[in-house]
C-alpha cells in the first residue's frame, strides 16, 4: 500500500496527538501542526494526500487556509476533512467548493470515524 500522508491541523496538542495516534495505527503517515501558517509551510514542503482541519485555530482560521489552498492549482485538489466542535454551524454544501469533503463533529465522532472519513475522501 502506498504511504498515504495526512496533515492534521489542530491547536489542541493532545487532541492532535490523539488523531495522529488513531491514524498512524491505521497505517497512515501523519504530520501535525497547530496553526494555519505552519500548515501552509508544511504543504509547501510536502503535499499531503488529505488534510484534517480544525476550524477555530489560533491566529489565522481554517477558512484562511482553505482560501490559500484554493488559490493554487496543485493544492486546490487536496481533500479536506473539517473536524470541529462547530459542526452544527456548518453546511457541507457551502464548503465543498473550498475542497471540504467531510465535516466531523468532535463531540459525537468516534475514533474510527476519522479513519472512515479519510478512506472515503481518498481518490
Amino acid at each position, binding site marked *: 500500500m502506498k504511504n498515504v500522508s495526512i496533515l492534521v491541523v489542530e*491547536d*489542541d*496538542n*493532545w*487532541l492532535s496527538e*490523539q488523531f495522529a*495516534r*488513531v491514524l498512524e*495505527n491505521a497505517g497512515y503517515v501523519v504530520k501535525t501542526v497547530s*496553526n494555519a501558517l505552519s500548515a501552509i509551510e508544511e504543504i509547501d514542503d510536502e503535499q499531503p494526500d488529505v488534510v484534517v482541519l480544525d*476550524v*477555530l*485555530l*489560533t*491566529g489565522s*482560521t*481554517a*477558512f484562511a487556509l*482553505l*482560501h490559500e489552498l484554493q488559490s493554487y492549482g496543485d493544492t486546490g485538489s487536496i481533500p479536506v476533512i473539517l473536524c470541529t*466542535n*462547530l459542526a452544527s*454551524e*456548518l453546511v457541507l454544501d*457551502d464548503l465543498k*467548493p*473550498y475542497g471540504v469533503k467531510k465535516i466531523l463533529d*468532535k*463531540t459525537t*465522532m*468516534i*475514533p474510527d470515524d476519522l479513519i472512515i472519513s479519510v478512506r472515503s475522501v481518498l481518490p
Partner: protein
Amino acid sequence: MSAQIGEHNSFTNGSLLDGLPSVIAAAHELKSPLALIRQLSLTLEDCPFSAEEQKRMLKQISLTSESALRLTSDLTRSVRLSDALFKLEPINPKQLCEDIIHELTPFFSAHDCKVRLKSRKHPLLLIANRDLLRRIIMNFSDNALHYTEENTTVEIQIAALAGGKKVRLGVRDYGPALSMDVLNSLQSRLVDASTTIHARPQSSGLGLYIARQFADAMNGNIGVKRHRNGSTFYVDLQASNQLSLL
C-alpha cells in the same frame, strides 16, 4: 460563495461567541475537554497501544478532567459571588504563586512546558481573597498553557506598581502575538462587565469573564499586555498598607 465564507469568517473572528449568555459560553468552553476525554476513552476501550502509551492517555484524561472541573468550580463560585461576602486579607503573593506553581507543574510537564515564578524575594503583600485570587491566576495559567509554544516556560510575575500602592500579578505566555485589533477590542471589553471577553478565536471568553468578576469582587482589575511573542494577562490589586502601620 464568498458571502458564505464571509459569514464563516465572522464567527471565526469571534462574533458568534461574543456576548454569549454564560450558560452557552460554559457549554462551549466545556466541549473541547469533554470531546478530548471521550476520544481518549473510546480509544482506550479498544486499545492496541503499549502500556506506556495507555498510561500517557490516562494521564491526559485525568489532567484534562481536572482542568474542566476547575472551570465548573469557577462558574459555581462566579454565580454565587453576589450572594456572598468574601474575606479580604493581606496575602503574600509569592507564597500563593509558589503554591499554584506546585499544583500546576504536573499539568505543564505533561504538555512539555514549564511554569516558574518571577518575583523579588520579598514582594509587597496585597489585599485579596486567597481563593478568588488563586482562581484568577490558575485561569490565566490555563490560558497561557494553551497558547504558549511547546518547550517554553510560562512566567508568573509579581511586581509593585504606582509607587507601591498596587501589586500586579501577571502570567506571561510565549505564543502567537495578539493582533492589534484583538488587543484593542480586548482592552475596551475588559472594563465592560456585561460581556464575555475572548483573546483568541476559539475561546468563548468565559475564563476571562470570570476572572474579571473575581477581580471586581476584590476591588481589583484585570488587563492584558501584548508582546512580540505572546501576551501577559494580569490582575492589579491594592497593596497591603500593613507595613506602613508598623
